[in-house]
């Protein structure tokens, strides 16, 4: 295959100096537009900003004061809440989705299609649309009569089941060869053993995908923590940013410092598991 046909635009064909310059300018522009604002955030978080109206792009007088003020305003507690929610929420989500996928991918049973369609339908019922009834349900779970308002569990439990994870996992589990399962079954292995020892280990790439997407999905939650919060004690860090901004004595530098703490975990997860992320994006979106 010739180099010229590798890409749609065939930009490799361009060898003239003008074309190369143009390409560099375009790349620089893309970086400035998309990474520039985040760079400004990073720099401002460490800057001693005297003028509260401006973000600083050029570092001057580096300081950790912004973080100190942010910590005084309880940012560490909110960060801890966020980690607690994402930790247990993701654990629950992965366990629940892998269990459900095992049934959907490896079993045949009555009403399977109904279950499948019901799970798909939940994709059209995001927290936004359900906000009002969800806040009522959270304050008094039907039958159990438990009040989850004002508890971190109120954020963790509802994110426990996510149709996206179940669908990605189901798709992947279908492709695990039957023979492995049969052999284990003849050896007398039970369902749970087959699930945990045979099927799950074969699904590591899919686990990466649902792990990464689950993490960013839970970390990005806004409306749900807002519905659950009775006071600031259960705020997650994204939720706390607004409170911080509204506080008249807090400077933008402090808000940016807290924002940096709020974006780092998901950016780190993305950078480390980029392959899973991109894989999930393309497989999740293109298989339809």
């Amino acid at each position, binding site marked *: 295959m*010739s180099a010229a*046909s*590798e*890409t*749609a*635009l065939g*930009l490799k064909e361009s060898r003239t100096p003008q074309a190369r310059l143009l390409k560099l300018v*375009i*790349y620089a522009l*893309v*970086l400035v537009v*998309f*990474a520039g*604002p*985040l760079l400004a*955030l990073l720099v401002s978080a460490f800057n001693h900003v005297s003028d509260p*109206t*401006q973000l600083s*792009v050029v570092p001057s007088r580096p300081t950790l004061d912004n973080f100190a003020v942010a910590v005084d305003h309880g940012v560490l507690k909110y960060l801890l809440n966020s980690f607690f929610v994402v930790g247990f929420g993701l654990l629950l989500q992965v366990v629940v989705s892998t*269990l*459900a996928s095992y049934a*959907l991918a490896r079993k*045949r*049973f*009555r009403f399977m*299609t109904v279950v499948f*369609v*019901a*799970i798909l339908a939940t994709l*059209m*019922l995001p927290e*936004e649309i*359900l*906000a*009002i*009834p*969800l806040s009522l*349900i959270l304050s008094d779970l*039907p039958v159990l009569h438990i009040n989850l308002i004002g508890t971190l569990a109120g954020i963790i439990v509802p994110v426990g089941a996510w149709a996206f994870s*179940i*669908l990605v996992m189901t*798709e992947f589990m279908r492709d695990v060869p039957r023979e492995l399962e049969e052999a284990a079954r003849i050896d007398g292995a039970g*369902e749970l053993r087959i*699930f945990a020892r045979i099927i799950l280990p074969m699904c590591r790439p899919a686990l990466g995908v649902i792990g990464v*997407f689950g993490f960013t999905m839970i*970390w*990005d939650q806004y*409306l749900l923590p807002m519905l659950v919060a009775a006071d600031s004690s259960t705020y997650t860090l994204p939720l706390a940013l*607004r409170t911080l901004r509204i506080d008249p004595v807090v400077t933008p530098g402090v*808000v940016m410092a807290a924002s940096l703490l*709020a*974006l780092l975990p*998901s*950016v780190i*997860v993305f950078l480390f598991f980029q392959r899973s992320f991109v894989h999930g*994006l*393309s497989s999740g979106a*293109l*298989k*339809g």
Partner: protein
Amino acid sequence: MTAVKAEPAAPAAPATQERVSGRSGRWWVPWLFLAPALVLFLYFKFIPMGNALVMSFQNVQPFLGNQWVGQDNYVKVVTSDGFQQAAWHTVLLAVVQTAGSMLLGLVLALLMEGRSRRLSFIRSAAFLPVVVPMAVIAELWRIMYHPTGDGMLNSLLGLVGLGPSGFINDPHTSMASVIATGIWRGAPYDMMIFLAGLAGVNRDLYEAAIVDGASRWRRLLHVTLPGLRSVFSILFILAAIRGLRVFTEVYLLTNGGPNGSTEVVMTLITKLGLEQNRLGVASAGAVLLFLATLLLTVVVSVLRRRERE
């Protein structure tokens, strides 16, 4: 990101019940595995949706008991100026943001397709906005949109002799500003999906086009874009649905203001429901929003299916 997975995997009819061994044949085994997911969905998706439907026909009074009011809430919602305006804003935002993100995403994908190290670094950097929490993006852009001349974006505008603009603080520019922030976050996402789509376009067709002497432009128009058709419809439906239920960025950037110029359905519903406690009316609004999403999903899937046949 998955509404799309809808069609492919519908499992075969349940007629072929598996009975490999006694244990696996027990009918309740799959249900045991499904139970946690089904219980959670029941509690946090289906019961709330059912409640929303019921409440939308009621005058909800927490301690006095609910009153059945028929279609009153719907009439109130549909005829209120506030809701009509919010619905128009929502559609405007969803359409412009979707179109803008897709166009910019496609351009980015075409410009940055390729395998070199440098390109993959730039792609990752451009993708960062997608993984940054929305709340952070909103706070960042609030500061960038600072309305005085020395605000970050205003000083850039000043360099080319424009502005200062009020951005989110001026009713004339507030909607455009919210949309711009949305495109900034949406375009890199679309770029990644387009890149995946581009990788799937048949390379032989490019060769053939070159052999036929087609210009770069014609190749793009007649080979690449048709090859991306399914990507377009997927992105369209995902982005449009996300656009319709837009909440966080509007809530944090403007909360519907100034002067209602950016009020969308979701910010209106939360105001009605959570702040004014008008649960019945708010539920009617939510049900209408759900129906709009449902309609859009069904129409697009029917169109796609017809196209495929």
